[in-house]
């Protein structure tokens, strides 16, 4: 995937995090790569967006959030039939806890904050996924 392809995409993303700082940071990171971004403050808001008919190619999901955490939201979205790429972004350092988060239905899990390298990787994965589906 060329650098031009990486930026000229029609991809949409949802950043789900209870920290306003992390939402702002990740939103900017994704926008820099040409994605259209929305944000949600917790897992329940994210699930509600999908219930209202929204859809996103990529979801960045924090783990620790009030009302509905990332694992619960991920499970709920998968039960609803959501096939978006869901990427956990967490500060959890226990392997056991990260594994449990992955098992909720994540495609990948990264330590926050995301870096440009992480995003390039995800865009390439999304590109591969789109190619397989077409």
């Amino acid at each position, binding site marked *: 995937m060329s650098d031009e392809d990486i930026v000229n995409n029609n991809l949409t993303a949802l950043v789900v995090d209870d*920290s*306003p*700082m*992390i939402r*702002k*940071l990740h939103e*900017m*990171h994704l926008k*820099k790569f040409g994605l259209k971004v929305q944000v949600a403050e917790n897992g329940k808001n994210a699930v509600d967006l999908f219930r209202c008919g929204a859809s996103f190619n990529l979801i960045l999901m924090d783990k*620790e959030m009030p009302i509905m955490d990332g694992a619960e939201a991920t499970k709920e979205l998968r039960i609803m039939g959501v096939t978006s790429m869901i990427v956990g972004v967490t*500060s959890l*350092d226990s392997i056991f806890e990260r594994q449990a988060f992955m098992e909720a239905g994540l495609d990948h899990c990264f330590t*926050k*904050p995301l*870096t*440009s390298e992480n995003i390039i990787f995800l865009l390439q994965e999304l590109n591969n996924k789109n190619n397989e589906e077409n």
Partner: protein
Amino acid sequence: MERNPLRRQLQIMRKSLFDQGYLDEQFVQLEELQDESNPNFVEEVVTLYYRDSARLILNIEQALERKPYNFHKLDAYMHQFKGSSSSIGAKKVKAESTLFREYCKSGNGEGCMRCFQQLKKEYTTLRKKLEAYFQVARQAGPMETACRPK
């Protein structure tokens, strides 16, 4: 070498923040996200950091007032605080957070208290330095692209 005196001052302030170990590479990542359409992005993120983290500092303070210490809870709060601090490249604050967590893991209450006092000093010092830096940055106007400290 920057000719504009304000920008030169800004460069010196920035270099000092890195040379004295207050900031690390993550701050440069923030700067790289700033552009003409978001000229105050770094300052906005730092402002959000201080707003978010004030709550965590208060939680830790309150937890340290309750005896016996709940080291698991203290560790959980500090883990969150460390994560936030890492996001803006707050190097010294992050180092104290790591030390605090080690004291929690070894059940060393006195160590936690001492470390927390030092952490608050570093946190406040960094805030003052960044406030001064952003004040000059606003006066100087938009800078060229972020450069990595040598």
